[in-house]
Each structure stands twice: as structure tokens, then as C-alpha cells.
């Protein structure tokens, strides 16, 4: 970790940390009654953030290889729909989750293989798969929610594992941090991480060195698919039901979080710590603005402003580096 040669340090972008601290301090001071640091508010952030956060971590890694994934708002409800169906068939929830993992992997694989085989922009490909799966999920479910509480209740251990608390600390937060650590190790301490950076910064060079860049990209899509299973299941257990609109808007928020985290849209640059902070920033912004009684429907306007600001700052920093 102390070694400045590691990509964790080399690609570390201080501006995200400064922004995070500034925003937190701002909300601590200016939210009514300093509600922001009220333990109940912190717990609520810790409970809600991982839904988006877990998947966004994977999106960040994918964006370092220079690709996008817009399909997550369809993959998440699709996984959660299949989860509900499996439960209705009487399958133990833990087993259902295990069965879902390969499904998520296959969904990710489909995205990946189309992107690398067609060579078309992943923006278009995953926009298409997003709409395709959305159509599938809407027609299968007729958009009706499916309550799953009666299947989950007999398995309190399962519920505790996904959405319980340790003291006041929501388990979701632990999963979120856990995924960030695992992906961080993969990205910064494993050769696969090096290949991700090489794929994103000079695909031809990576190929010439015998790196299968198609495999690298496809693997990142598969990881996202698996994370969607996780986030989808966790969210539906919390909500107590499958919901066709789960994960709606996540594709853009994930990109926003990753950009705020200093990842270049051109790929090749990035850092798991920054991605993690980027996600926190987006969530803290949302939360803090609500506490400050910003009109709910106007919050996106603030996030949009913040995003532009970050993009400008990061662009400036990257040009200085180049």
C-alpha cells in the first residue's frame, strides 16, 4: 500500500476526498438541527446506499476498461423477479440466491460477448439489452409486485444475513464495504487489475502482450451481473417484495458516481477508493439535500450541477497530469 508504484496510489485522485469531506462538513453544519449526523440518518444512509453502491462499484471497474453498462436497471428487477418465482416454488431463499448467481453471470456474459464481438459502442449495446430485458420483465410480471415476506419470514437467518444489523450498523453497509475491498484487491493488487488498466489505456498494447482484452471486458460484465443478483435480492428482501421498477435510474446514477469518483470516461484511469467515495458523495448529496428540505423533485438538478462541476475538475486534473 505504501508503494507509490501500485495503481491504487498512482491513480488516486485527492479531489474526491476533499469534496467528500467538504460536503459532509457542509451538511453537518447546515442541516436543520444538524440532522445529518443524527445516528438514525446515518443508519438510513447505510441501509439504502448499498443497493446502488454495490453495483456501481462494478460499473466503476468496467469503466476503467473503457466500457459502459446501462442494462443494470433491467438486470436488477429481472434477478429479483426470478428470486421471487423461486421462492414461490418453495425453494429455500439461500438456495435461491445461489441458483441466481450463475443467472446473473450469464446476463453479464451476454452483455459482454455482444460488446466485444460486435465491436460496437457498449453504450448502444447495453442500452439495447436494457430495453430488451425491461420488456421481458414487464410482460412476465405484468408490472405487478410480488410479496415475498411470507417466504422470507420462516428464514430469519437469511434476512439477518442480508439486511440485519450489528448493533446499529446495517449489514448492507458491511456487504458494500466488503465488495469494495474485494474489487479493490482485484483491481489494484492482482494481475487482472493490471490488465483492466492496460485494456482501458491501450487495447492494442495489451493485446500485443498476449492479454485477451475481450476476456477482460467480458469478465467485468459478468462481475456486474453477479453484483446485480446481490443488490436485487438484498433490495427485494428489504422491500419485502419484487418490484418491476427496482433499480430504476441506477444506470445513470452509477455513471454519475463513478465520474464523481474521478474515473475518466475514456478509460484507463481510476481507483477503487475514489469510486467508493464517488458513490458516497452522490448518496450524501441526495440525503443532505432532502434533509435541507430541497424540493424532492429538484434534487436531481443539484446532482446534475455537482456532476458537471466534478467532470470539469477531473478533466482539469487529468490534463495537468498528461
Amino acid at each position, binding site marked *: 500500500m505504501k*508503494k*507509490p*508504484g*501500485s*495503481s491504487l496510489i*498512482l*491513480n488516486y485522485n485527492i479531489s474526491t476526498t476533499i469534496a467528500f469531506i467538504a460536503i459532509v462538513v457542509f451538511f453537518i453544519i447546515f442541516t436543520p438541527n444538524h440532522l445529518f449526523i443524527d445516528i438514525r440518518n446515518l443508519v438510513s444512509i447505510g441501509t439504502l446506499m448499498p443497493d446502488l453502491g454495490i453495483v456501481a462499484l462494478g460499473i466503476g471497474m468496467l469503466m476503467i476498461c473503457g466500457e459502459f453498462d446501462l442494462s443494470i436497471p433491467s438486470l436488477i428487477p429481472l434477478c429479483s423477479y426470478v428470486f421471487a418465482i423461486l421462492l414461490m416454488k418453495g425453494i429455500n431463499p439461500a438456495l435461491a440466491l445461489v441458483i441466481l448467481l450463475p443467472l446473473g453471470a450469464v446476463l453479464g456474459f451476454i452483455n459482454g460477448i455482444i460488446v466485444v464481438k460486435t465491436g460496437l459502442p457498449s453504450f448502444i449495446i447495453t442500452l439495447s439489452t436494457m430495453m430488451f430485458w425491461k420488456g421481458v420483465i414487464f410482460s412476465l410480471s405484468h408490472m405487478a409486485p410480488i410479496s415475498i415476506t411470507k417466504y422470507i419470514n420462516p428464514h430469519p437467518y437469511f434476512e439477518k444475513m442480508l439486511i440485519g444489523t450489528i448493533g446499529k450498523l446495517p449489514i448492507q453497509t458491511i456487504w458494500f464495504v466488503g465488495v469494495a475491498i474485494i474489487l479493490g*484487491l482485484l483491481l489494484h*493488487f*492482482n*494481475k487482472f*487489475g*493490471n*490488465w483492466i*488498466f*492496460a485494456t*482501458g*489505456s*491501450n487495447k*492494442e*498494447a*495489451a*493485446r*500485443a*502482450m*498476449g*492479454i485477451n482484452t475481450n476476456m477482460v471486458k467480458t469478465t467485468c460484465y459478468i462481475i456486474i451481473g453477479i453484483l446485480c443478483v446481490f443488490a436485487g435480492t438484498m433490495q427485494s428482501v428489504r422491500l419485502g417484495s419484487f418490484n418491476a421498477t427496482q433499480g430504476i435510474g441506477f444506470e445513470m446514477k452509477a455513471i454519475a458516481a463513478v465520474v464523481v469518483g474521478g474515473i475518466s470516461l475514456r478509460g*484507463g*484511469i481510476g481507483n477503487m477508493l475514489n469510486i467508493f467515495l464517488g458513490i458516497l458523495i452522490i448518496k450524501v448529496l441526495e440525503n443532505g439535500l432532502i434533509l435541507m428540505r430541497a424540493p424532492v423533485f429538484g434534487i436531481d438538478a443539484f446532482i446534475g450541477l455537482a456532476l458537471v462541476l466534478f467532470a470539469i475538475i477531473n478533466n482539469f486534473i487529468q490534463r495537468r*497530469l*498528461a
Partner: protein
Amino acid sequence: MEYLLEVKNLTKRFGGLVAVNKVSMEIKEGEVVGLLGDNGAGKSTLIKMISGVHRPDEGQIFFKGKEVKIDSTRKALSIGIETLYQDLSLAENLNVYSNIFLGREKLKKILKFINVLDHDYMHKESKKVLDRLEIEIPSLRNRIRVLSGGQRQAVAISRSIYWDAKLLIMDEPTAALGVAEQKKVLELVLKLKSQGIGIIIISHQLYDVFSVADRLVIMRRGEKVGERNIKETNPDEVVSLIVGAEKVKQ
């Protein structure tokens, strides 16, 4: 003496275009062969068949006397064919030693079962090879993007040497460099030659080629149109081969 590399009748088509048409050439250990030709003559395509980027449509490749099927870049690397591409073959956002080890990373185990990158080892080994070639790079922990063109080329060359290149192919290694850096790269070529490495060098700068090559192979429109020992030719003759004699006469 047997050849280090011998290619026979290599042909590559892209759709209707015959980019390389039945080209044969050979190279011995410690020999420097200059590959010349106008833009689009097929030089890069020819060497990409040798380095495993393209598969030949026809023809054979022999390495140290044995026929080899080079069906991937990995295969070429594994038998000791290293290539420096025209479009610099380094990942800009990785540091120097990560580039030297790119695709062949050195790992170490922590807690007995988790493989992680062994930064210390890669740093140390890279330093050694750079020192051996007398290449000066301020810090191997710097990203490639902060290095000059010449330093980058030097890093790419030392990568080949570290991985024990028997044959080094260089596609316009001096194209993007300043005069002093060009000279440094050419010195490096001669140093490698003296270590018995076979080198194929593509360049548009005749001066470069004449100062390091033993032999020249000239291509035009996908075909080999001539082969000359450097001592038995001169730049004028070579230019007329490159552009086609008819043109010169006009």
C-alpha cells in the same frame, strides 16, 4: 548456419486487397535486416504475421529450423519473438515496471493462498535490465505517460530483452523521436545485435537503416521487390526500388 527465422511465401489478404503477396525472407542470429517500402507496402502486415497478430492466409514460418504455427501473440512471445509496434506498445497509465511485466506479471502469495502482484520483485528486475542496457529512467514507479518518446521506446526494448528475445521486430522505432533519442535507439540496436539477437527493423528513414542494418528487404504493393546487402547498395538504388524504377526514370 541455420536461420533464426525463415518465412516462405507468406500471404495476407484483407477482403479483396492482397496486403502481403508471397513474401519470403530470412534472418540469422545477430543480424539486422532493414525492411523498407512505401506507405501501405505491407511491411507492418508482414511482421504482424510473424508476431501472431495476423494469421497468414498462405505460407510457412520456420523458427530455428522448425516450422511453427504462430496463432497468437502469446505464442510468438513464448518462442522469443518480441515486437515493438509502430503505435507504441505500452499502456500509458501503468508504471514502467508494470509495463515490462505486462501480461507476464510476477505474483507472490500472501497468507499462503492469495496471489498478489509482487511490486518489489518487478521493480528490482526491471531496474536490472534497464541498467544493463544503460537506459536512464528517473523512476520506474512513474507512469509511462510522463516519459519522453525515446524513454518509452527504451522501456519497450528493455521489455523484449528482459523476456529473452531471440528475434526483435521493430516497426518504425525512431519515427516519433527527436534526433538525440533516435541515435540512442540505434545504439541500442547495435548493442543487441552484438548479443546475438536477430533484429528486423522497419523504417522510412534510410539513414537509420543504413547505419545499423546488414541487409535490406524492399517491398512494394505487398510484394518483395528486392533484397540487398548493405555493402553492395546505396540509398539511390534503394529509393528506386521502393518507389518503383519506372517512376524514377520519368
